[in-house]
């Protein structure tokens, strides 16, 4: 067993689970979506991205790309949330919440691809 592989897989799967946890619930209801969960999802996603740096295989490159997509989507969601809370006069309306959650949903798709690729990679190794 390789400790590096454990950490690597751990963060990739954790990024997916946190992302999924945040995404769960009514799309426009702020009560169903925790800001802490989004924060954790962003942090874990960033860590997963850095862990993928320097992979020179084809699959490593695609993994990095999916991670970057997830980062982008989650950060966009966080920015929208911050703007709604602090800048906009209307505050966090259900429609804004829907935008945030759907952005996180996009990130979820990227994270799913990431995990699928990880499994494909492991399956191809047969070790």
């Amino acid at each position, binding site marked *: 067993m390789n400790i590096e592989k454990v950490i690597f897989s751990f963060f990739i799967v954790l990024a997916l689970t946190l992302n999924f946890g945040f995404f769960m619930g009514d799309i426009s209801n702020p009560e169903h979506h925790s800001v*802490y969960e989004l924060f954790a999802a962003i942090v874990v996603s960033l860590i997963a991205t*850095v862990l993928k740096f*320097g992979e020179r295989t084809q699959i490593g490159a695609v993994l990095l790309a999916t991670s970057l997509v997830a980062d982008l989507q989650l950060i966009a969601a966080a920015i929208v949330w*911050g703007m709604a809370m602090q800048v906009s006069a209307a505050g966090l309306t259900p429609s804004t919440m829907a935008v945030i959650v759907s952005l996180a949903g996009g990130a979820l798709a990227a994270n799913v691809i990431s995990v699928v690729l990880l499994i494909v990679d492991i399956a191809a190794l047969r070790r």
Partner: protein
Amino acid sequence: MEYRHRTVFLILRRMRAPLLLLIVVYAVSILGLVLMPGVDSAGQPYRMDFLHAFYVVTYTVTTIGFGELPYTFSAAQRLWMMVTIYLGVVAWFYAIGTLIALVQDAAFRQVIRENRFAAAVRRLTSPFYIVCGYGDTGSVVVREMVDHGLSAVALDIDPERINELSLEDLQTYVPGLCVDASDTRHLVLAGLHHPQCAGVVAVTNRDVANLKIAITVKLLSPGLKVICRAESHDTEANMVSFGTDAVINPFDAFADRLAMALHSPDLHLLVDWLTQPPGRPLPVRTTRPPRGTWVLCGYGRFGKAVHRYLQYEGIETVIIEATPEKVQAPKGTVHGRGTEAVTLREAKIEQAVGIVAGTDDDTNNLSIIMTARELNPSLYLVARQNGGDNDAIFTAAKADLVMQRAGILANRILSLVSTELLTPFLHEARHQKEEWAHQLVKRVWPLAGNATPDLWTVDITPAGAAAVHTALTAGEKVTLAHLLTDPAVHDESLPCLALLLQREEGIVLTPEDNTPLVIGDRILMCGRPGIERRMAGTLHNLNLLRYVRTGVWRPDGLLWRWWSERRAEAVRSRAH
């Protein structure tokens, strides 16, 4: 060409740990700040939101420090801020420190240099040679190649020399890299598999390295031309055995040119003219070396080669050598360096007609020349120049003949790479009578116009001479004289001449002007720079070719042809 390391990925991989640390520290700091209880300006309990927490952490850990925003901090928040500052600032220092260490890392910089070099090589679009070894010879070879319009890539193990290359004022950019050229990977990096790579010139000062380069190239890219320098005859034979295209022994090449200069000064001059890049000042004829006894100073590898060639020419020599036992000098060798009058007198300098100062020390050679001239002012003085940067003092010493080692080697190499037909021409020329060389020098001299002539090849093929090929296919007769005619003025000829005609039956040196051309002929032309382009008109344009053949400007195009035929008919019928 595959990069060994992409610079960006190399940075990312090295920065992995500091970046992870930064993300973790930021996450912990932001989360902590959000969780710490605070009070707003109205005294109500307040918790910072993520946006503000991120904002505060960002400006605090980068040591900008805007203060306590949006409200004055509570004691708990201040406590947490202290933790944040110590963690965050340390994490940033670590990250920046790693980045700076990486940029200064010798291995990393070498990777960057290699990548830049490989990119520059990949961008080359014209045929180029890989020159391994940028020393005295290599630098002259590169300069002359560039002046000949060829591209070059230089490799050398010494960083000083590659620095010199970057300071050199060359007409085109020559990528250079400081690596061991005998390493296969480096040769590949320098474009061994590049479609435009024409060959490899191995002129490092180590025979072993040159041998390794030659064998590598012959194995990996058998089609490439390989020219090698070899100091020992063993290595030379070894290189020839696996098909190295040309092996040049610096001592033999040098002695050979010296012998040529003494025995056939005109041929020596001709070789000088034809191998130098076009447009240089034309070297002039020197006085003819006298026949008689010669004094040869220095009996090392160079001296031995010279002695052998002089013996072959039937010239009597007296040898002066400092360590006769070590070099196994023949009997009758005068012991000494030759820089002192005593030694020179012992070698009977007063009765000699010439002296060759051929030691491997430039200062000694100059000293020999000057002492010898004092003892016998009528001596013919030949000096061997080793270092490339001693040009000025050798010119000032006013020797009759200065043989510069690097220059001679470079000339030899350039004669092999510059124009394809030059090698067979020089080969044939060596077997000609001296009178032939004398006549040729007299012919080339007026058309060169005080600058070294340009050489080019004319191929009578559809691609090389479209119009001539068409005319020959149609059964018309085209002679060499037609090509040499000025396509602008019919009764004048271009300032150029044909040096060599190569066809299936064999090689013709300086073919006669009335030689009829045959499809497949290859002609080596020699003329003033720029003439090649004017001749190309005749070669490719049917109208110009017809003009030089008949001297009549015939209009072309269906309408004009019909019109001119009608006119000619009208003239004829009027005459009847």
